[in-house]
């Protein structure tokens, strides 16, 4: 029992290791991160940072969060040994089953934490952006749990390709606001949520869904998601008696990947690989592989790798997976990309679909198209993971929401 309890313990309070030293006090991960927002938001962000620091150090808050993660979210999620997939690929592959968390994805780890914080700050209303709809559903769920009013911004294109999640949010009592500006996807939903927040900052907390945006969001979302890696460490040691050779996760904004990786950043024997969406091709407007074709830029509150044109305007992106269809990436990823601690690669839509098929048919688990990018990479001839490796793949979400997208990609109506 005490072993189980440890899995949901809060993060260690002492900042003793290198990974805990970032971000610095200004919210910087090296040259990335920061707080690039309009003046109206500077003070509310400083207040959020203070409130979060207090909550983080408050045993009562951490206990309430721990209890909810255990009994409401269903943590710890299992670490599942994928025997048939392992046999086919000649490695030992474990899946961290975030798809089994309540609402079907890792997003709930963060939204329960942030909604508890909103309540603690006395804010009766939360807003969120969503791409695939998973973060929107997770926010609507936590808002229902805690009795908060909830509005979710979602690009018009995404409301169409993820219609099931729109209905789920509405059933949970949230209002879904379709966004018709720009490319009508995740990026525009974030801008719309930021505009709402700047106008209602007294009453409203913005539940940002990934390790993006202005400080303290990249740090706070990482902290709430890092339970994934802490559980994984205990579980893989129990199952194998050693740490994995590789961790693999898909990278959109980067919350499920940093959630898995963070615990292991100080373990030099553990290598890490983040998989971005290669879309149709690595050409402007046809992919979301920021590390393949982006360069440093400032968008939506943070400095990071950004897909942009020569004039600094943001390029359109494409991915079959709505959750990876975003032009920038969390600043902590940019930092670990540049210093080589985390490696990144991308796979295209078809390769991700192959990953979807493989897991569905070999293991009876239908992955989200986001997670299918991490799985699809393992199937590639050019995979840099040596045969015989022990690896953990973050199965960040379940694939029910993507059935229509998969059928459409196969030319079925």
């Amino acid at each position, binding site marked *: 029992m005490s072993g189980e309890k440890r899995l949901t313990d809060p993060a260690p309070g002492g900042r003793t290791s290198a990974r805990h030293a970032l971000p610095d006090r200004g919210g910087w991960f090296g040259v990335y991160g*920061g*707080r*690039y*927002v*309009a*003046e*109206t*938001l*500077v*003070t*509310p962000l400083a207040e959020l940072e203070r409130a979060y620091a207090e909550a983080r150090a408050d045993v009562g808050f951490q206990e309430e969060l721990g209890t909810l993660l255990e009994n409401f979210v269903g943590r710890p999620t299992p670490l599942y040994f994928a025997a048939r997939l392992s046999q086919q690929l000649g490695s030992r592959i474990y899946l961290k089953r975030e798809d089994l968390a309540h609402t079907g994805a890792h997003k709930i780890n963060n939204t329960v934490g942030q909604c508890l914080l909103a309540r603690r700050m006395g804010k009766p209303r939360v807003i969120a952006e969503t791409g695939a709809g998973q973060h929107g559903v997770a926010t609507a769920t936590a808002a229902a749990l805690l009795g908060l009013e909830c509005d979710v911004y979602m690009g018009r294109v995404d409301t169409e390709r993820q219609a099931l999640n729109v209905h789920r949010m509405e059933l949970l009592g949230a209002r879904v606001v379709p966004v018709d*500006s*720009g490319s009508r996807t995740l*990026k*525009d939903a974030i*801008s719309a949520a*930021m*505009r709402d927040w*700047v*106008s209602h*900052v*007294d009453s409203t907390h913005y539940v940002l869904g990934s390790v993006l945006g202005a400080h303290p969001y990249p740090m706070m979302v990482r902290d709430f998601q890092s339970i994934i890696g802490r559980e994984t460490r205990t579980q893989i040691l129990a199952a194998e008696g050693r740490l994995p050779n590789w961790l693999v996760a898909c990278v959109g904004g980067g919350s499920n990947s940093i959630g898995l990786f963070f615990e292991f950043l100080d373990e030099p024997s553990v290598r890490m690989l983040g998989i971005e969406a290669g879309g149709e091709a690595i050409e402007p407007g046809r992919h979301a592989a920021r590390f393949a074709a982006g360069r*440093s*830029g*400032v*968008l*939506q*509150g943070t400095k990071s790798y*950004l897909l*942009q044109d*020569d*004039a*600094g*305007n*943001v390029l359109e992106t494409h991915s079959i997976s709505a959750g990876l269809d975003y032009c920038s990436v969390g600043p902590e990823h940019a930092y670990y990309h540049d210093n080589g601690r985390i490696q990144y690669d991308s796979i295209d839509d078809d390769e991700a679909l192959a990953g979807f098929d493989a897991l569905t048919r070999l293991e009876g688990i239908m992955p989200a198209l986001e997670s299918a990018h991490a799985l699809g990479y393992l199937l590639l001839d050019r995979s840099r993971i040596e045969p015989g490796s022990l690896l953990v793949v973050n199965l960040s979400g379940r694939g029910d929401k993507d059935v229509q997208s998969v059928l459409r990609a196969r030319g079925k109506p």
Partner: protein
Amino acid sequence: MGSSLAAQMHRIRSCGSKAFIPFLTAGFPDPQRFRVLLSQTRAADLLEVGLPFSDPVADGPSICHASEVALRHGMDAGRLFEILAQETERPPVVLMTYLNPLLAYGAERFMRDAGRCGVRGVILTDLPPEDGGELFELAAAHDVASVLLVAPTTPEERMQQIAARTTGFLYCVAVAGTTGARKQLGSDARETIARLRRVTALPVVVGFGISTPEHVRETCAFADGAVVGSALVDLIRQQQASEALPQLFAARVAALAAAAHE
């Protein structure tokens, strides 16, 4: 200190007048007509020009739409500087944009080219003053003043820090929110400026939500000037098919300026 912009604000203040500052989105409704509209702002004291960015998170629907249209017409920093250099029959320009287009153009090159074509101040919506040190120095070297923003949410201690970095005038955001015309002015700007006056003697202009001559009059009763943006952008959008657009625009600018100069 010692910027041309500060000197101009000082002149306006010392003769007991107020600054009227209309806003135009560069390249809207198209580059040619933008250039014509520039020449119709002579009744104003200064002119604020927005260099469009693809993701203007601080802007409301009017300026977002104008920015999208301008970008489709290929507007960028280089083209804006060319137009400003050609169209000199206009008030001095304060350039408003987001950080990323400036970084993409190159900060030093941006300030140099801006200074050369008569840009006398720059407003970077998403750059917190504490991170702007180097940029503000580059700007000052080309007589481009840093115009910094103060919001209703800004505490007094921070107002002091912001004022210390301002080399032109302070821009008071009238409401916590995005740009955009509003029917009524709230009391936030008056309260913000009252707090601001306790910590600085710098001139303060107010923007966001000011749309009518009555709003300008009301604002100039307690501020050193007023910016009208979205309401003019809306006028341009509504009248863009009309051949009389330049005259209609000039008349509106004149009426707003008169309200400030009363």
